[in-house]
Each structure stands twice: as structure tokens, then as C-alpha cells.
């Protein structure tokens, strides 16, 4: 089938079997390999992306369900997108990514894209960043490296900065994106 949707603000149109997983379309058709596969069964959250702002496991979503919708992946988070000839640098990062870098929230990094997307959705929800709320928000994302401690710290730090920015008025947007 032919599907049309928006990925990270870019419209795409492709002809693929409707049952093909969103994960494979992102990684293989669109070259967006930032989204990872850890289980293919909806258990690990490594493939987490936002579908119309909602957290989904891209390994469980057939592409037919994406037709007409908006997808955001880790590649869409950075304030400035790295490229082949310009590798990613700290000042490319958005507030949440930056908080992960500062606190040590990414170790091996394989869970990180999914964690960032879950964290981004949590920040966008505007919910108070309590320890329990953050844990709940990332409960579907497994990490084997960090014990989650610094991931939770990172999301809390980004939320604190978001709240401060909000109290300062319209100098930054709600997603905490600079």
C-alpha cells in the first residue's frame, strides 16, 4: 500500500506492505537507524517513538496504522541535526538530551533513543516530575546498564529547567526544546 506520514517534520510517501513494522520502515526504508530493536515483541522499549505525540513501540505498529499520522524519532530531537561530515556535538542537543549527557544517563546507549522519546513525552505532558511519575513514564523501557538512577535524574533535571523556563515566560517552548 502507499502510505503518507510525517517523520520529524518531513513528509514521506512510500509504497510498502501494510503489515510491515514501523520499526523496519524507519530503519530500512528511511535510514533512521536511531530507533533500535531489542526484542521485537513490545517488551524492551528500545524502539519507542512518538506517534502523534503518544509513546508507541515501533516494533508493534504496522505501517498501515501510520498512514496520515505524525511520527517523531530520536533523530528529530536534536536542536541541530548532525550529519555524516559533522558528527554530533554537545551543542546540538536539546534540553533532555543535554540533561542525559550531564548526568550520565546514557551508558552503552542502546536503550537511550527509546528512553529519550519516553522522557520527551513525559516532559511534554507537563506532569510534575516526581520520582514515581518518572519511573512510571519509563517503566516500559528496559535499561541494563544504569540501574535507571541517572536516567531518572536526567529527566528530573530537564523538567526542572522546563519549569524554570516556563516561569520566565515565553522564552522557550514547552517541549523544553531550545
Amino acid at each position: 500500500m502507499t502510505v503518507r506520514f510525517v517523520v520529524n517534520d518531513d513528509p514521506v510517501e512510500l509504497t510498502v506492505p501494510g503489515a510491515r513494522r514501523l520499526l523496519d520502515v524507519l530503519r530500512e526504508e528511511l535510514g533512521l537507524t536511531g530507533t533500535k530493536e531489542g526484542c521485537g515483541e513490545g517488551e524492551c522499549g528500545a524502539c519507542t517513538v512518538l506517534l502523534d505525540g503518544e509513546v508507541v513501540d515501533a516494533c508493534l505498529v504496522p505501517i498501515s496504522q501510520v498512514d496520515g499520522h505524525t511520527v517523531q524519532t530520536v533523530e528529530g530531537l536534536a536542536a541541530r541535526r548532525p550529519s555524516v561530515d559533522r558528527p554530533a556535538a554537545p551543542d546540538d542537543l536539546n534540553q533532555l538530551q543535554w540533561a542525559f549527557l550531564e548526568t550520565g544517563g546514557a551508558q552503552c546507549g542502546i536503550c537511550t533513543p527509546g528512553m529519550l522519546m519516553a522522557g520527551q513525552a513525559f516532559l511534554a505532558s507537563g506532569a510534575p516530575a516526581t520520582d514515581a511519575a518518572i519511573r512510571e513514564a519509563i517503566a516500559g523501557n528496559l535499561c541494563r546498564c544504569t540501574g535507571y538512577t541517572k536516567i531518572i535524574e536526567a529527566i528530573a533535571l530537564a523538567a526542572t529547567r522546563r519549569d524554570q523556563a516556563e516561569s520566565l515566560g515565553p522564552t522557550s517552548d514547552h517541549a523544553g526544546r531550545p
Partner: protein
Amino acid sequence: MPVGRTAPAPPAPGTVLPDTPTPGPAPGRGPLRREGPAKLTGTALYTDDLVFPGAWHGATIRSTEARARLLAIELDPAFDWSKVVVVTAGDIPGPNIVNSIQDDQPILATDEIRHHAEPIVLVAAPDRALLRQAVGQVIVRTEPLAPVLDPLASDRVFVHYEIETGDLAAGFAEATLVIEGEYRVGHQEQLYIENNAMIAVPRADGGVAVHGSLQCPYYVHNALKRSLLLTDEQAQVVQAETGGGFGGKEEYPSILALHAALLARACGRPVRMIYDRHEDIAATTKRHPAVVRYRSGVAADGRLVAQDIEIVMDAGAYCTLSPVVLSRGTLHAGGPYACPNVRIRSRAVATNTPPNGAFRGFGAPQTEFAAEMQVNRIAEALGESPLDLRRRWLYRPGDTTPTGQVLRESVAAEEVLERAAEAAEFERVRARTAGDRAQRGPDARSAHGIGLALAWHGAGFTGSGEVHLASVASVELTADGRLVILIGSTEMGQGTKTIFPQLVADALGVPMDDVEFAPQDTALVPDSGPTVASRTAMVVGGLVIEACRRLRAVVEERSGGPFADTYRADAGTHGATRIDQHFRPYPGVDFDDTTYRGDAYPAFGWASAVAEVDVDLDTGEVAVRSVVAADDVGRVIHPVLAEGQVEGGTLQAVGYATIEEIKLHDGRYLNDRLATYLIPTALDAPRISTILVEAPFSGAPHGAKGIGELPMDVGAPAVVAAIHDATGVWIHDLPASPERILAAMDTLVRR
């Protein structure tokens, strides 16, 4: 309550936030992770992210029996085999052996199948659909044989050790209290979130390059050279970004690289072998299950006077690294306590189950769980606080271990214990939980408990291991004036790519950003030994610092000025200068592999943990609420990364203690999916507070010891002690599952 214990202070209200966050580390937190931006933007390239045009996909056809005779491999003639390639043992140019300690594991099974999921046939095809079809048309004919599944019934012993010191009989004769126990721990899966993955690419010179998720490029290099009959240059191993290892990518990648390389040679194209989670759990190595029988004798005055320990580890069907895993388990089995009369006997035996291998802690978590259970049970029998008992028994400088090693320096057992106990307010909480227990009525629904553990962990390879490894680490000032670190040690999340530039910048007096880290590609970097055994920061770090000192001396001698100001000009005049630093034995460290006497490790790291749990008395479920971990790492190189190691290791230990369990049926792992093999989520994870203790090791120029494995040794016994404090029952077998806890509470009530 917002969290953010160690987060830098947020900007004061009223300050205008910059449009982009200001790059730069927070003070006192160490430099930013070097490859962090790539990982955070999704641009870091893991194996499955690498694109090789025209690559085929490979698959492994595996045994569905635990033990069988392989009679025939048949290809259905109705299928068009010209479109795919099939590889069997007969296609291997060299020995059908996965290079390791013993030459017992075939790359592909030939006559006897020895475990479930053993590789038999390889297939590659241009696309996945055709691959699936082809795999379905391969028929493996076998005749079942009776498997050996119980390690205690196995008479095939891969390796055994015996350590004896003092006079055991005299020790027990002096004892007025003897505590015995049998402890069983099961398999644990490393469960890195990135599955094992390898891509093999044929080289123009007839060799093969493999790009993969791996810890030890030179292990893979040796395996390829040997079985594919390649030269050093023809075999090329390149580490891709690696999504976690924990030992699970120490030896396993060798067989996977061989499989991918065989297929790539057969089809003349790149071949991708990317395991899915099911295959990864079903086929790859796990932590060794063990049975530990322990007898401890305590004299009337409370001294520990005898330890008699017997260890049986289940190696699975092939030897892999079992001799070194068992060795480490044996050497640590007494725990960090001085005892004059000790006997430790151990063996690793074969069963018809998938081979077990390296996993963080490497044999020590199994035996130190038993050691700590004994100490806690003795404390209970003596009516003494488990903290006070450890204070009396723990190793102090000058004490002698069962191998006769005198602990001359860098002994921090007492410090980690005191720091953890103090931060967790161990005695205060313990008094409270004791009060709760005394008052608890029959209607109580839940119970709170606190538990303590102490451990030691030998830093670096065991015994003469480092001497045999003969590692080389290099630093080069290139002709165009760049500074490059050349080591085969890999980044897998623990921070190698950050701490090495840091160490070099420090040693050379240059900014860290001026130091490059060469890719882990065997065509470019020397063999600095495997990235295992918490040895990288200590051993390889030490070599790199020595190399820097020599480089600095050479350049400053030539230039007459400080290195930082003169090295670029020096490169312009003298061209490249490369220093290769070879490992030299630590002075005064001597171990005899045949008698198991001497200095088993150049130094030990020390760890203590205090855990608090809530136990649901109806369901037996355990919630681990908090862990305070104090770990002695010699010297902290990078606080954030070091804490990250402790936090991650602690949670793996909590999983080991409470929920992680492989169930077997006829030698097959039953729960070989992520839906059935559970690891802790953010909701299961306790609050973890880390205390880093520094008792430097004089043999390393920077004083650093290891860190990665320490937290793995203490977490499980601390949690099980806390479960006992809450419920009054001792759980001897890991994990302390709800069923085991309920069953033990039942028995307690009936008594």
C-alpha cells in the same frame, strides 16, 4: 518530590536560560562522555545500523535436542538451492574448533550434538523471506541420546581446584559453633539490550573483515585466523558501537564471527547475522549455575577458625571460560574474612545444556553469596549484629588469604563496611525492624527488612593471567601533530572512550579534546588484552600512562620545553613518535598456577551494600526499596561513570537476587523470551546511593583498581539478608522468588 540528587544546581530564578544549553561538564563530575552526543542523537552506529550494499542475511540451524547423534543433514531437492548458500562443518577450511581454553567446542556440530540450540548448519540468502524458506527445507536427522542434566551427577569434569591452608581438622576441633549450608544459584542472562550481532565482509586479499558487537577484538581475531587459516592481516575485526556486554560479548562473539565469516566466504558477499532476542537468550552463554556447600567453625571466643567449602559449577556442554570462572569463584569463596584453617575444593562439570560463560563477577557472585549467607547465619546463631561480626572478622592490612597472599596494601574492607553501614543507618533501622517483627500480629500484610553484605574482588586477571596476556598499549604523536591512543580495549558503555583521553590528557598536560582514541580495529590497534575482569582502567590505563610518560620525556628531551607547547613542532621536525608499552609483572606479585599458592591478584577491590526491602507476606513478593553501595575502586577517575558502574551492577545483582531465573526442561531454556525472562524495570529498581572509596593500588601509576564487577558480588546477599530480617526465613537458593519465600515461611510457621 523531584529527584536530582547529583544534578548541578539549576540556574537561579530570573536568569535567562540560553537558547542552547552551555556545553561543558558540571564541576567535579568529570568530563562529558565522549561518544555521548552520538548516542543521544541516534547517530552512533551499532552493528545492525551498518549498511553494506548487497549484503545477504545469515541464519543458524540449531539442535532441538539436548543430546543426540547427528546422522544426516538433508536438503529438500524440491527447493532451488542455487539461490542461497549452505555451510556445514565440512566447509570449514581449518580446525572445526572455537578457539578458547580447551579445544572442545565445534563451530558446527558433526557427530554428537551436546546441547539444545547447538549450531549445526548455516544458511545465507539475499533476502529474509528466501532465507526463511531455505531454513525450512533443511532436514537434520538425529538419533536421541540420554542427556546428563544434573551437574551433581556429571562425571565429566572440565577442571577442578583445591586450596588448603592451616589444619582444617584442628580448626573444627576448636570450634564450638559449626554452621553448615548448601546454597544453589541458577543461570543468569546478561541481557544487554543490544543482541549479539556480527557482519562479515569478504576482503580482496582472501580474508574477511567482521564488524560486530563485541568486547574482545583479539579473541575474535585469533578464532578467525585459526579456523579459517588466515594471516594476521587477512583477519580483521572491527568493533561497532556495542550496546552492553557484561561478559556476554566476551567469548560468544568468536563463534558468531566464525559463522558469519564462513557464510560470507561461501557467497562472496557481506553477510549479516543479527540475533533476535529469542535466539540470543536460547543460544548464548549465561552465568554458571552453582551448588556451594559450606561449613564454618567458630571458636568459643568468637573467632572464625575453620571454613570447608565445596563448589560445583555447571559449565554446560563445552568448557568455554569455565576454568577461569571457577578459579575466580574458588579464590573468593572464603569471603573477605581472615581464617587460619581453610579448605576449598571446586569443580566445573559438563552437562548437556548450553555452555555457560563470562558474566560480570565471573564466578565470584556465586561463591560470595554462599560466604555471606554463612556469615549472616552465624551472626544470628551468635546473637550478634551482622555488622559487628564482620568488623571482627574482616581482612585488615597484613592478613593472609587462603592462598598465602599477604594483603600488604589497598585493603579497604573496613572502610567500605563502615561507610555503607553509616550512610544506611544500618543499626538504627535494624533495631526498628526487630521491634516491628516482635510486635507483628498474624494479620500483618507486609514486612520491612534491612540486610548487609561485604565482598572482595580481585582486580585484573587471576594469578599469572596478566603475564600470559602480555598486553600492549600504545600512544602515538602522529606526523601531523595529533595525539592518538591505540588500544584494543573497547567501549561498551562503561566509559573507556572517555577515561582514556582523560588519563592521557592528564599525563601529557594537554587538553582532553586534543587526544584522539583510535577505533577498535585489529588493523589499527595492538592487543591490549580483553575488555573483561574490571582490568581496563587498572592494567591498560596503567600502560597508557607509562607510554605517555615515555612520550613526554622523549619530546621534552628533544625540544627542551614543556610537552604541551612543543609536541606539534616536534612532530613537524621529527615525524611520528609512537610508544608501545608492554605489560611488565607487578613487582612482588607472584602466583603458582599448579599449587594455587601465592598472590592470586595484584590487589583487591572491596564492596559493601546495605539493602532495604518490603516483603508482601501474602504473596511473597519482594520490593527492594533502597541499596546503599560503598565500593573501593582504588582511585576514582571519573565520578559519574564510576557511579554509573555501581548503579548498573547493583541493579543486576538485585535482579539476580529476586527475579532473574532461567527455567530448564530437558536441557532447553523454557523462558527464552523477554516476556518470560524478566529483568528489573524502573519500577522494580531501588533507590541506589553510591559511595566511592579510594584505597589506591601502588602498582598502577594512577592507583586505580577495577570497578565493574564489585557491586555484583554484594547485592544478592544483602537483599537476601534483608528478606530474612523482614520475614525470619533464610532463602538458600537464588533467586529469592515469591514461591521460595512463601514455602520457607510455611515451614517456619509449621516449626
